[in-house]
């Protein structure tokens, strides 16, 4: 069958399913280890500040991506901040409709230069606007495992 002809049914040509299996074991890194431990143990958001550029990275990093300075000064920023943008997601990865749409937002925590992406909760799309204040809702301490999902969602202040 020539390439330009469209295959309408799988049985018209020999084809089979295969997969590219990839399973990974990740490390959070030197900075990530500290950020997630602080989140798990203290329920706080920690970052690093570049003295040259004035940028506060949250999660913290060990280097400034702009000037390459090593970053050693850790600080804690607020667990609330400003909504920079938001969307309501209706379809899943395979294109099917979600049973319940999810709201996703970008939050710049007070004191941070960088922005986190996470889910928004306890809010409806019709009340959302950019610039609103949101605060983190964390899992109870005993349930936290040092992962980004220790944050359940952000809710309006």
């Amino acid at each position: 069958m020539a390439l330009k002809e469209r295959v309408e049914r799988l049985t018209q040509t020999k084809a089979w399913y295969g997969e590219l299996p990839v399973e990974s074991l990740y490390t959070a890194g030197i900075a990530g280890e500290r950020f997630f431990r602080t989140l798990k143990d203290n329920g706080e958001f920690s970052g690093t500040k570049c003295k040259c550029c004035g940028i506060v990275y949250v999660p913290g990093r060990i280097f400034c991506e702009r000037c390459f300075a090593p970053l050693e000064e850790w600080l804690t920023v607020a667990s609330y901040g400003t909504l920079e943008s938001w969307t309501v997601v209706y379809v899943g990865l395979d294109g099917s409709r979600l049973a319940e749409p999810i709201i996703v937002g970008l939050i710049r925590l007070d004191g941070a230069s960088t922005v986190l992406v996470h889910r928004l909760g306890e809010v409806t799309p019709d009340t959302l606007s950019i610039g609103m204040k949101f605060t983190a809702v964390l899992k109870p301490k005993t349930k936290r495992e040092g992962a980004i999902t220790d944050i359940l969602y952000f809710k309006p202040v």
Partner: protein
Amino acid sequence: MGRRVAIVGVGMTKFVRRAQETGQELAYHAAKMALDSCGLHLGQVDGVVLGSAPDSFDGVHMKGEYLSPGAGAWGKPYMRCFVGGATGVFSVINGWYYVASGLFDTCLVVCEEKMSSFQPHAQAAFLTIFDHTTERPLKPNLLWIFALEMNRYMSTYGLRKEDIALVAVKNKNNALDHPCAQIADKVTVEEILKSEVLAWPVQRLDVSPVSDGATAVVLANETVARRVTDKPVWIEGVGWALDTAYWTNRDLCYPRYVEEAARMAYKMAGVTDPRHQIHVAEPYDPFDYKELHHMEGLLLCGKGEAPQLTVDGVTRRDGELPVCPSGGLLGVGNPISAAGLMKVAELFWQLRGEAGKRQIARKAKRGIAQAWGDLMQVGAVVVVGI
């Protein structure tokens, strides 16, 4: 061949089985060290080249983008190159032509690999490089290629495993003096011959390990190079070539693609008699027989002659033609692209007389680094000199 290009700084992390650092953090350490070594800061870098092997190693799709902050690419022209195992040397060729062309005055070249991410073992990442129709149903392993090639090499020239194992002995011993080495060891031929058979004739100690690590070099044009260092190491020639992607159809006992890459680089460098004009070599040695294979492809000796040179001690650090004085992939480790670039870094230190305990005995003004990869049919070569 355009403007002269020099290597003016290098940096590398330790090569380890599993790094706590993320790939970004590894890349940063190497890149920062390379810049610090020549007193340049990130603002003086015109463009960045990143070399990294399959995305599946780090477990991040499009890992060029993921690694870019650690490579210093923020706000700069940034190019990722990838030719499998040959990436480390090819990345230098990439950086070279941005500077040689006059587009950039300086170029930071960073190579990173975090192979420990892939589960259960990085080897399995290679299952999916094979043809999905004719080969994958047989569940091939990369070791198949090496074993078939090694067997062919041995039987064509009547070689003994004992002689080939001497390469692993030499390189793992050399690595004892490398501060970044992962599996330096005083191993013996007997221990190699007794190690587990992976795919005959390849045994455990014939093979380099799975590693995490990063290496970086700073390239500069002549004006910048003369300003920042008294000892620029010039890139005199570059070359790369491909054989057929049908790996079964290659000449398994001779890497013709390496010869073609070498001839291209030699022509550019004005090298007419490599046996005498190359003083130190860092051929790609993921397996012990590959060092020999590649020495022949680089025309450093005749076909089938490399094992005897090894037996005679010619390739030791105190020999006439030191080969893999760094300890190579067999001793320092094999975070794919970072290992290839480590070879260029080693030539930089050797030619400048800064290799410390690894410093070769003979006087060296010119060296060659080579790496090999893709579906085992790419050769990349760089000739450097002072």
